[in-house]
């Protein structure tokens, strides 16, 4: 479930509808990425074949990525049309990423326990609309218990807030 491609293979889809195809767009994005890396790589000496510099291998790889991107775009005519890709969970995914970003920002500022407590209260209370009592119990229990196991029992240092908590 972790790394299985989500879209079926082109042959299985057999969809020849109009509009931009997913592999065409992917290929072009890869090509653009490769171009950007080549541009960034200009700062590093490529050296000679007998003495390759720090820019040599990145340049080879970027050129390789660009070539593959081009092939993906060229052979991507049979792939899934872009409009057929469903983004039903995208809004929730953005909320998750923003909340994780907020937790990361707060982690070293207010400490592990408080930031994780606030993070779980937000998810369980605001996003999932759980009842206050189980929400508070899970948020407090998880933040305290995980800190105890990881920091106190396993000896892994975790950030504490300005109040030593």
């Amino acid at each position, binding site marked *: *479930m*972790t*790394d*299985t*491609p*989500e*879209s079926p*293979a082109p*042959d*299985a889809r057999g969809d020849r509808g109009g509009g931009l195809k*997913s*592999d065409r*767009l992917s290929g072009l994005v890869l090509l653009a*990425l490769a171009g950007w*890396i080549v541009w960034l790589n200009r700062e590093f*000496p490529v050296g*000679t*074949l*007998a*003495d*390759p510099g*720090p*820019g040599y*291998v*990145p340049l080879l*790889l*970027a050129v*390789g*990525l660009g070539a*593959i*991107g081009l*092939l993906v775009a060229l*052979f991507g005519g049979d792939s899934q049309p872009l409009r057929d890709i469903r*983004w*039903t*969970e995208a809004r*929730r*995914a953005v909320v*998750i*990423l923003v909340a*994780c*970003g907020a*937790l*990361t920002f707060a*982690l070293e500022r207010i400490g592990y326990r408080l930031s*994780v407590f606030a*993070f*779980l209260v937000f*998810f*369980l209370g605001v996003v*999932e609309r*759980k009842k206050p009592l*189980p929400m508070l119990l899970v948020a407090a229990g*998880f933040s305290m218990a*995980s800190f105890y196991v*990881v920091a106190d029992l*396993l000896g*892994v*240092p*975790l950030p504490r807030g300005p109040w030593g908590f």
Partner: protein
Amino acid sequence: MLETFNSLMMGFAVAFDPKVFMYAVGGCIIGTLVGMMPGLGPLAGISLLLPATFGLNPIIAIVLLAGVYYGAMYGGSTTSILMRIPGEAASVMTCVDGYAMTQNGRAGPALAIAAIGSFFAGTVGVIGLMLMAPTLASFALRFGPPEYTALLLMGLFVLAYMSGGSMLKTLAMAFFGLLLGMIGIDVMSGYTRFSFGMVELGDGVGIVPVAVGLFGISEILMTAGQAEPPKVQRPKLRELIPSREEFRLSLGPIVRGSLLGFAIGIIPGSAHVISSFVSYGVERRLSKHPERFGKGAIEGVAGPESANNSAATGAFVPMLALGIPTGPVTAVMIAAIMVHGILPGPMLIQQQPDLFWGFVASMYVGNLVLLILNLPMVGLFVNLLRIPYAYLYPCVLAFCILGCYSVSNSVTDVWIMLAMGAIGYGLRKFGFDLAPVALGLVLGPMLELSLRQSLALSGGTYGIFLERPIALTMFVLALVLLAFALKPVIFKGKDWRAGVGLDDPPPG
């Protein structure tokens, strides 16, 4: 042979040390729980536990992490059979017939055959590891930079050829991973590359933030807002015993799956995932009644489950003998060993025999522990699946952040993890395989170093790769695979994936 036996006995002395044994059992139990939880595969489990192993001795650290790995492979089958939810990717094929068996009231025998098959396959895998790794390691002592360059390139082409999806897209992801591996200080010149002025990127991008982001976070983003999981069955102990006919039908698939899985496990890529697909395809093809597949054929559980467990063990052969990871999990495990100042590779077995043989022996013990513990305790373990997903996923997210932060106490690592999570989500939407990114990240610096050393050795000519027989053989093999892989792309034909059902959605 006698030497191997004596070394194994020494390994058992290490594995039965009470502390090592306790950690092996603990790793198996944690792994089983991790494997059962959607969103926490073996990789995320190992990554999260990694910081906790820094204070342990290296033998205990690797025994614990390996226990988590094969425990997770084992645990993934439980959710597949009982709920049609693959706890980890390799269990996807088990869902098909395993869940159909549950619907037919045969959940117990399906779980039992999965456990027995996993035990047999795990044991076959360990025997293979024990016999192959030392031989491969002594052969690899002849390797210089050109041979390593050829080996790494061949590995990438094999990965592309054997990947479950498009070869071009897999290669693109491998190149993306290799480029990620270029970030940080160049060890040969001292230049800091692609760091955008961030001091934290001087050491490069770590495997843990990338792996947890790509696999853990992106999985949660994909499943966000999903419906509550279906109700879970709790099979009783007496319902677990398969019938004589079920045993008879499972025997061949277990043996074939074990051998096939081990052979595929040595190959780079998502080997355990591919092995389960290939095994399912082989069993369906060999069956006298292929129409039973998808409707509760026990061979469809026995083969893939054995194959993915055997592949998980096979992956340790190149990791321990050559120091080369075959996938993200072994990449993280190499990082775990290197933290202790030990470099996996050809010299490991000679310089650290207690670590290698202790590890091998602990895998025998771990497999037995999993069989003894998991079958009677399956009713207890499935209680975990009763936790509503709405409560589970925020806690898993917090765990991911906690695990990633604690590897090097760096918030930058957490930001990288979140970025990789978002990238992984987008890539999965567009049908890209993510394993090559993690693999490329680890192989990138190795490939760069060996290529530049080879060119320096040869005075600037690529002819050095043609003058050395081992390197030349590997390059020829890589080119043959590339030709095979490109043929269906160019001529629009079908390749081996179609034969094993990787191009088709699974039945059922």
